[in-house]
């Protein structure tokens, strides 16, 4: 039987589709194995770079390995801990708020006294030109959080100016900064609530301090 006749055969179609599926799956499996390590390395590097931005300073441990899973304001949160000489000096974790066009993901760094060392938006779908001023590359607004803590400004001032708070909103976009402020405040409250566990202390003087 030549190819022409064979191609009309019913079984031929099944074999052809099966063969195609087998070969393409094999190609994908090989590619997944070949790129897996590089993708992980690239993602880890990404994380490290964003950590360095919200958490300036030198720490002597690998943040990616020193993690803690806790229940935060939006479900499970992975907390990365930065140590110096074994003591937790600062923490980095992700917080999310609701913006105008969906969830805004931020990472924030906070030192052991509860002061923010930095906040950056890592993912958002806000309107370009209006809401995207929350990006550090577009506007300096996000730097306003640095050095702030739960008592400074007072809890009811943790809002945009339109809501009686201290943080600026943008012309034409109030919902976006409101979402970010709320997310950061939630992050601070999360720190306050889990302080002892996060800072990995059980010494009496730390508990008194709380």
């Amino acid at each position: 039987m030549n190819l022409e006749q064979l191609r009309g055969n019913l079984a031929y179609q099944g074999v052809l589709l099966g063969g195609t599926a087998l070969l393409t799956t094999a190609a994908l499996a090989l590619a997944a194995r070949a790129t897996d390590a590089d993708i992980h390395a690239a993602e880890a590097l990404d994380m490290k770079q964003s950590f360095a931005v919200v958490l300036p300073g030198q720490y002597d441990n690998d943040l990616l390995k020193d993690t803690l899973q806790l229940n935060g304001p939006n479900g499970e949160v992975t907390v990365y801990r930065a140590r110096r000489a074994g003591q937790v000096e600062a923490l980095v974790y992700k917080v999310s708020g609701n913006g105008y066009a969906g969830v805004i993901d931020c990472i924030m760094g906070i030192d052991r006294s509860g002061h923010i060392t930095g906040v950056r938006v890592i993912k958002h779908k806000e309107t370009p030109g209006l809401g995207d001023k929350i990006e550090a590359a577009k506007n300096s607004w996000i730097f306003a959080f640095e050095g702030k803590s739960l008592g400074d400004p007072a809890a009811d001032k943790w809002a945009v100016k339109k809501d009686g708070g201290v943080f600026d909103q943008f012309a034409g976009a109030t919902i976006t900064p409101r979402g970010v402020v709320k997310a950061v405040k939630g992050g601070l409250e999360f720190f306050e609530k889990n302080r002892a566990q996060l800072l990995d202390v059980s010494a009496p003087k730390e508990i008194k301090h709380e």
Partner: protein
Amino acid sequence: MSNIYSRISKESLWDNNIVFAQILGLCPTMAVTSSATNGLGMGLATTAVLLTSNMIISSIRNIVSEEVRIPVYIVIIATLVTLVDVSMNAWAHGLYKVLGLYIALIVANCAVLGRAEAFAAKNPVLPSGMDGLMMGLGFTFALTTIGAVREILGAGTLFADAHLLLGQAFSFMELKIIPNYKGFLLMILPPGGFLVLGFLIAGKRVIDRNRAQRAVVAATPDAEPVAS
């Protein structure tokens, strides 16, 4: 033989350009062309898929039967797109963060399946590869042009962040066309894509018509202008 290739190039790059003439693949076209760099990156990724998919499909064109050709082509194209996706994620991570969302859209780019059906399934491997390459470059040209117009009008820059795509050596391409420009938001938003595309298609038709008229005049050099 060589004039087949020059015909394919001319067809693909201009006369039958995927975006400007066939008006295909508009989903990625609209989604990524908010800057020239994004258009260029998306265009090059699509070119890689078109080139390889055309060559693979052409080389198996005698084995694939009429009845199941579409699923076979789609599986091959989807695989190639995934390969581009993972390799970009691994080795061009900066660009992947910008374009990653859209790479998967290449599967839905009907131009890729269109070239497989219209050309690769009927022609030998080399002309099919040429067709894929040139169609891809035509697509890249279209996306980069739309992106450039939108970026200049919308943000006053050209090829911003080109170093993410092409490496640090190409940062000279990043131009600030209009200093202290406040931006024209409409151009960056989706309506700007449709507006720019419409004007560019109209522009192409004007150029084509002028060329056709000149060709007619050149073909009849003795003809007197007719007063009507």
